[in-house]
């Protein structure tokens, strides 16, 4: 050990302390910077040959747990998903149930039933009639505005996907720039500042998408979604684009076929210029984008379908009647008997149910009137229990089609508009019944049924399948029959001779409102099982379903936040800057600096002493 080496060692110590102080000052300065990870200076004993010659500063290292970071990004994607869903559903729930019940769908449905019930009790009363009309108008406009809310929420989701995609592209550009910086400065792969900057971008990305980061050599990373969409290959980003549609309406839906698609889809274009539909491939599984896509294409359309089914059920329950076919006895010498039915009563969407029996096998087929071949195909159910019949070819062609559907044991023929279905007369096959489900269109036709709720333009709701189903978006169009609004006495008067106090029609309406009205299983109110009940109970079910959906989403989001918080806490404990720690470090470094300076001073004194000896 020489004096000069002593001085050299002390100098390296001073340098190390200086570097340490540098890191501390950076840590303290960046204590509040988002994405900043705490750094520690790394030193190493300097050895020359076998002799220790001081301390070397290797640089500053990030204090970072890679696994924890991965988990954090996963959870933040989850939180992005649950948060977006919870917020959107909470907004929607407020529309369904404004201010604790008053004016809500359930409230108005109950109010309408009560008003009709009062009308049945006092049919002749003018004010009872007007309040029934008012209640009907309120109910219809509530359905309209709810449908509007649902579509607005869909539009919001569409807009947010658009904004998110723009943001994601911006972030990917940032990541690309960071990647370029790594490549430009060889050996910068461990530069904590560059790494922090890039990681912060990836963190932001993780709230939109479920990202998976694969580290490469020298700071390079490739980024993809867990669903397999490559977002950044280490050099070039994938460009996402979104063709935003506006305004959205009930009949516009997502389809993998771009020509049938009524809403936007995310297209990814990679570095080679190849494009593909990300949504069709299901490559985004979490994050806020996935939540908005799910809201737009599944959750909200289901809410819309519930409203549509309620509106359709309501309109049909009040206006539809069943008409039995006329029995046709066997006329000798023929032994064939059956039923006849006047087809002119049927409107598009109305149905004719034919029950037959061959031997011991009973069969019931429902034929739905359609105005075109396309509508007939749409009306046909996959299980064959409901068959759409194109009526555009006239009664004779209808008879032919029905005859074909019924099979060889039965003969269908038409004369004028009257359809006749006969068995084969052998006794093994028989037509057991023919009945039509008919919508009453007029107000005073003599039928106590009343088309109180009609489609836009005043046409009756018949459940037609022309140009897309009449059901789709009916809640947006349902309105109270203008004839009833103009003359509320038609709530009671079902023919020109009906007495003003005749309770027949209101009593029938109350009975129909008390149900059961059936909402099909496809609306998801009760799994896949249809739900039946009174108008009020169905409205309750729908409001409760929205409330439950909002609650579930909120609970999920709360849970996700707890998880995210826990991961964040652990991450922060490890990688965050603690001022107390830093200052303790500072004191230590100050002391070390002082001590090194002291050693240097001592070395100087030793040299001075030596020089004095020489003098």
């Amino acid at each position, binding site marked *: 050990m020489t004096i000069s080496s002593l001085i050299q060692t002390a100098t390296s110590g001073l340098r190390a302390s200086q570097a340490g102080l540098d890191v501390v000052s950076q840590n303290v300065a960046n204590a509040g910077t988002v994405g900043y990870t705490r750094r520690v200076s790394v030193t190493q004993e300097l050895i020359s040959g076998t002799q220790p010659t001081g301390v070397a500063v290797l640089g500053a290292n990030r204090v970072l747990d890679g696994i924890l970071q991965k988990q954090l990004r996963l959870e933040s994607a989850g939180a992005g998903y649950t948060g977006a869903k919870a917020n959107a559903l909470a907004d929607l729930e407020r529309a369904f149930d404004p201010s604790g019940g008053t004016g809500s769908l359930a409230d108005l449905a109950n109010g309408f039933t009560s008003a009709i019930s009062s009308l*049945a009790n006092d049919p002749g009363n003018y004010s009872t009639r007007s309040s029934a009309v008012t209640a009907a108008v309120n109910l219809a406009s509530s359905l309209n505005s709810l449908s509007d809310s649902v579509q607005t929420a869909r539009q919001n989701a569409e807009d947010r996907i658009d904004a998110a995609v723009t943001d994601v592209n911006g972030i990917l550009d940032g990541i690309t720039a960071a990647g370029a910086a790594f490549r430009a400065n060889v050996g910068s792969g461990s530069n904590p500042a560059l790494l922090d900057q890039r990681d912060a971008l990836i963190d932001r990305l993780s709230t939109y998408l479920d990202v998976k980061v694969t580290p490469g050599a020298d700071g390079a990373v490739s980024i993809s979604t867990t669903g397999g969409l490559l977002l950044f290959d280490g050099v070039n980003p994938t460009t996402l684009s979104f063709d935003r549609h506006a305004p959205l309406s009930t009949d516009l839906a997502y389809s993998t076929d771009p020509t049938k698609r009524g809403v936007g889809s995310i297209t990814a274009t990679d570095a080679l210029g190849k494009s593909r539909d990300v949504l069709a491939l299901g490559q985004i599984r979490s994050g806020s984008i996935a939540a908005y896509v799910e809201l737009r294409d599944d959750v909200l359309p289901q809410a819309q379908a519930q409203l549509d089914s309620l509106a359709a059920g309501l309109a049909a329950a009040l206006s539809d009647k069943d008409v039995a076919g006329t029995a046709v006895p066997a006329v000798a010498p023929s032994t064939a008997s059956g039923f006849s039915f006047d087809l002119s009563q049927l409107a598009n969407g109305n149905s004719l149910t034919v029950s037959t029996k061959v031997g011991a096998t009973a069969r019931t087929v429902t034929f739905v009137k359609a105005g075109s071949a396309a509508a007939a195909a749409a009306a046909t159910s996959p299980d064959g229990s409901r068959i759409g019949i194109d009526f555009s070819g006239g009664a004779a062609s209808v008879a032919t089609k029905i005859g074909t559907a019924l099979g060889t044991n039965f003969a269908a023929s038409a004369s004028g508009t009257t359809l006749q279905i006969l068995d084969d007369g052998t006794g093994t096959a028989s037509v057991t019944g023919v009945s039509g489900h008919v919508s009453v269109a007029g107000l005073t036709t003599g039928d106590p049924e009343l088309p109180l709720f009609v489609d836009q333009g005043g046409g009756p709701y018949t459940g037609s399948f022309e140009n897309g189903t009449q059901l789709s978006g009916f809640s947006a169009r349902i309105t109270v029959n203008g004839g009833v609004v103009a003359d509320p006495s038609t709530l009671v008067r079902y023919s020109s001779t009906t007495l003003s106090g005749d309770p027949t029609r209101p009593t029938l309406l109350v009975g129909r409102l008390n149900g059961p009205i059936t909402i099909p299983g496809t609306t998801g109110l009760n799994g896949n099982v249809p739900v039946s009940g009174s108008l009020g109970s169905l409205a309750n079910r729908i409001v409760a379903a929205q409330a439950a959906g909002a609650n579930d989403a909120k609970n999920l989001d709360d849970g996700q936040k707890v998880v995210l918080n826990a991961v964040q806490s652990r991450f922060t404990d490890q990688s965050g800057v603690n001022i107390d720690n830093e200052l303790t470090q500072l004191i230590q470094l100050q002391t070390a600096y002082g001590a090194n300076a002291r050693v240097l001073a001592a070395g100087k004194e030793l040299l001075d002493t030596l020089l004095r000896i020489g003098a």
Partner: protein
Amino acid sequence: MTVIAYGNGPTASRLAVQSFDRLRTQLNGFQSQLSTGKVATTVAGLGIQGSVSLGLGSTASRLEAYQGNAQDASLRSQLIGTGLQQLDALGSKLASGLTDTVNLPIGRKYVVDTARGSFEQAVDILNSSLGDRYLFSGRATDTRPVLDSDLLLNGDAQRAGVKTLIDERTQADLGTAGLGRLTLASAGTTTTVSEEAYGLPFGVKIAGIAATGAGLAATFTAGAAGSAGPPAVPATPASAAIDVTGTPVDGDAVTYTFTLPDGTTGTLTLSAGAAPADGADGAFAIGATPAATSANLTAALQTALQTFVTNTVPGASAAKAADDFFAARPGAPPPRVDTSGGSAAAATAIVSGTAANTVIWYQGDDGPPSAARGTNPARLGDNQTIGIGAQANEAPFRALLAGFAVLAVQDPAPATPPPDDQTLALLDRARTRLTGQTSGTAVRDLAGEFSLAKGTADAAAQQLSQAIKHVGDSQAAIENADPTEAASKLIQTQTRLQAAYQTTSTILRLSLVDYL
């Protein structure tokens, strides 16, 4: 959207901020609970109880509709019931006064005036309405069911009222000879009373004949429809023959049974007896020979029959005409005597009146009166309905009005007062109508029906109001915030928040920086 921000300072301070947020949100929640009194402002805020609360709201709304129905039904049945009690009182008051006062001229005027007053009052009661709704009009709630009382009694220039109908019918029933459309003939020792013609809708009908004693033989021959043939058989009217086959002893009697126009029966008995035995005293003189006795019998019968018809037919005819008049409804005008052949006394047929020539007293619901209750069903529950409809043309009301009318159209002070027996027969017809004997159901029975309905409606309203209260309580238990609990939670949270502020501020202020 969740912003992830890590690495920015001590975890403690960040978590502190989060917990402040949480506590503040809680604080706001309790504050709004206190100010609104509700646990949450949305169904979702009620959590799992939300759908229960919705269901309860829907139940309450349904029950409230039923309660409204029940209260309305109670009010209406009470009004109808009160009206019916008044009608009943009018009827019984007049009926009970009929016998005592009638034999005096002043009594006759009193009865006629009272009957007229009661008739007018009854029409007013049947025309009573609640709000815009006529109570006795069935489903035709906007139509006044009964026309003006004066029009009903006297008609107007074009249309005949009940008075005209009674006059016509009385004439038709009495016939030109005043023998009630009967003829009397004798041949040999046989005296025969026959109806004027077979199937004649007017007059007295022979129901039977019976004789006591060995010298009298009675034969009843029912009427027979003729046949156009061939061979043509003429129709034969009913007849009753009495053949004097021997010499009857004192007290032997012949009894005729007649059916009067209103369907009641009357009997005429002639006994063999001592002079004068002229029929007026209900006896015929026994002659020396059967032929002489027969001649006496014929003469006595002529007188007795005349008296019988004079005394009984006007009352019965009036009752029949009034019954017919009040049985009419918009779709079925009352029957009229066909006077196209000249006088009513010689009329042989009944024609239907028309709205142009006859007053149709009832203008309300044309449905069957027997189904009147069903014209206004009040729904008191999912499965409970009471019928509280009423029609002015229900049988008890018709009978009551007919009872009043037959008396009201009488001349209060005729120049020649009718025989007492005739008056009594009329009073008798009026009384059976006023007391509901002819209609089976009396007005008071209907009053009972409606008071029962009111009881049912009241009980239902009470039950419903309890049920609504229970539902409301259950709903309040879910929806309403307990102010005490909310206030105490508010204070607790406030304290916790203050404590958290205090500690956090102390901890955050505690920095090594200060000690260097």
